[in-house]
């Protein structure tokens, strides 16, 4: 934390993604967004750049980087567009990471190389129609039949709002399911890998979303969906602990994404304030505008420090739960406020979808909801301070 400069290789990565976002993403993403279409060519290009393999070792086709590298890439993408950033975040942090963290050698060899190359995408199914933050309310069930001799899990239930679950290149969804009766006041929850196309696994039509319109989000349903016994991910009954770990990390990634959006609002506002004139002067000359932009910059900067600190703790193997919660809380709030202020600076044009700030405004709100609501972040911080549950 003492060195104010990013190490050279991280700075090079940041610059590369920045250039990609400006040159390749910025000119075309508005059209995908408008059509609610998934930007396959851009995802493929990100795959060729190795972004989907950033935090994974080379033996699985990864880039040999770390979670910090992923966060930098997310921030730079989200400065221009959040749909692609969430596609990357969910693909890496929710799709591939559980396999890497909890998978057997065989599962990693089988699934990770395609996910690291970005040729295929993975998804993580936790949220259900009747339970998001309340993960203990999981109703999806998995029953083990003929255990031990070519046995299989029979999965029944449904999942909601699952990112990357229905693209043409989705290879799997890892779902949490109740696999046994309640023990010590908690249901036995396990994670099971469901390959795309498994009979009984239905991907519902895409949602009509307020934001993230160029990302892929579906409800999923499972009706006697049968997968081999060896598709259990990690230990049976450890599903709850596993997704808590995955969500803790994911919060840092979402905070990085939110920081990017907050910074994108500063970028756009500066550009606009310098060219737009009102009452005979460029609006950058009005203190009302200057103060707004200064506040926006301060929020983006604070958010960045918060997520980078949490990421540094994570990659150094130190406890990071509270810092990740703080980063997500602060950064999503910064994104929301900056989007509102940037839209205000743009006036009527800010309400038009053709300007990026309009997209930012629509994309910001979900950041206070997804991967743990702001209320959940506050609970986590309070628990860490020793306040009673």
């Amino acid at each position: 934390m003492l060195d104010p400069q990013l190490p050279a290789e991280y700075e090079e990565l940041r610059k590369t993604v920045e250039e990609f976002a400006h040159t390749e993403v910025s000119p075309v993403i508005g059209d995908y967004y408008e059509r609610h279409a998934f930007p396959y060519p851009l995802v493929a290009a990100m795959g060729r750049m190795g972004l989907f393999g950033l935090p994974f070792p080379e033996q699985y086709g990864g880039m040999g980087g770390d979670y910090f590298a992923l966060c930098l890439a997310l921030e730079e993408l989200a400065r221009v567009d959040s749909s692609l950033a969430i596609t990357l975040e969910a693909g890496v942090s929710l799709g591939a990471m559980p396999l890497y963290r909890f998978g057997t050698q065989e599962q990693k060899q089988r699934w990770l190389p395609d996910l690291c190359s970005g040729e295929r995408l993975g998804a993580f199914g936790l949220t259900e129609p009747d339970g998001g933050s309340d993960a203990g309310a999981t109703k999806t069930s998995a029953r083990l039949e003929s255990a031990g001799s070519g046995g299989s899990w029979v999965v029944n239930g449904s999942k909601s709002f699952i990112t990357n679950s229905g693209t043409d290149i989705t290879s799997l969804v890892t779902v949490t399911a109740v696999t046994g009766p309640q023990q010590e006041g908690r249901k036995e929850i396990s994670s099971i890998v469901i390959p795309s196309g498994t009979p009984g696994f239905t991907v519902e039509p895409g949602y009509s979303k307020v934001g993230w319109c160029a990302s892929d989000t579906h409800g999923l349903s499972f009706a006697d969906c049968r997968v081999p016994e060896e598709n259990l991910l990690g230990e049976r009954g450890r599903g709850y602990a596993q997704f808590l770990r995955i969500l803790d990390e994911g919060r840092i990634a979402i905070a990085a994404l939110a920081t990017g959006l907050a910074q994108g609002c500063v970028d756009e506002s500066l550009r606009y304030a310098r060219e737009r004139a009102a009452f005979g002067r460029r609006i950058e000359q009005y203190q009302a505008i200057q103060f707004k932009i200064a506040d926006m910059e301060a929020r983006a900067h604070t958010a960045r420090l918060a997520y980078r600190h949490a990421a540094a703790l994570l990659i150094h193997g130190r406890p990071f739960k509270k810092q990740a919660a703080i980063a997500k809380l602060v950064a999503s709030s910064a994104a929301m406020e900056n989007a509102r202020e940037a839209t205000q600076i743009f006036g009527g044009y800010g309400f038009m979808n053709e300007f990026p700030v309009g997209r930012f405004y629509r994309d910001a709100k979900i950041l206070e909801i997804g991967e743990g609501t702001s209320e959940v972040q506050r609970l986590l911080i309070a628990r860490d301070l020793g306040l009673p549950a």
Partner: protein
Amino acid sequence: MKIVVLVKQVPDTWAEKRLDPDTLTVDRASVDGLINEMDEFAVEEALQLAEKHGGEVTVVCMGPEGATDAYKKALQMGVDKAVFLTDPALAGSDAVGTSYALAQVLGTLEYDLVILGSEASDARTSIVPALLAERLGLPQLTFASKVEVDGTSIKINRQTDYGHDVVEAGLPAVVSVVEKINEPRYPSFKGIMAAKKKPVQTLDAAAAAIDTARVGAVGSWSKVLDATVTPPRSKGTIVTDEGSGGVELADFLATKKFV
């Protein structure tokens, strides 16, 4: 196949550039340096040829001390090693001097093919590839929009105003490429990390057997005598149409000899 790709570090195309009033050269210290855009296409083509036919790619860069961004980018993209020619005596070299210096560096290397961009975004003379081929006594395959290597021969599509010519030569040869040829890759994080460990050989004029009387501002054949900043565009004439707008417009076009 051994391929040498030449790159130049140029001032950021988008940055505001200014001339140093004393030397009448671009003030490079005041702007960020980066790889000449056209050279990225040369690097990409070199990498694609090496991936297809096997072999090794060396990047050669000539520039002031510290101008390391251009060859580093090439290393990050996947080039195997770099040779960096830097010497205060080279400062201010024109295209003729530059081609001589580069030819001397190439004399220290083994290669089957030399690839470079067809022009640099700063000086834009576009003649270094031809000068270099002449100095090396090699076929010059300039303005290539497509390159095919087959054993010991090479065939290119040379982009022209009317379409393209197909030009063929034996190897070794010098090829300059245009932007149409490919889509340069972005460095991956693995490439960025790997680049830090790749060999970089730094040469001064003496190490490349360069006669310093033939390079730099002193050895250049051409000299910049004067330079003027492009004047800002003046405000146009605004005519309020009070019935005679059409006539005035026609008169204006007539005085400018457009009609």
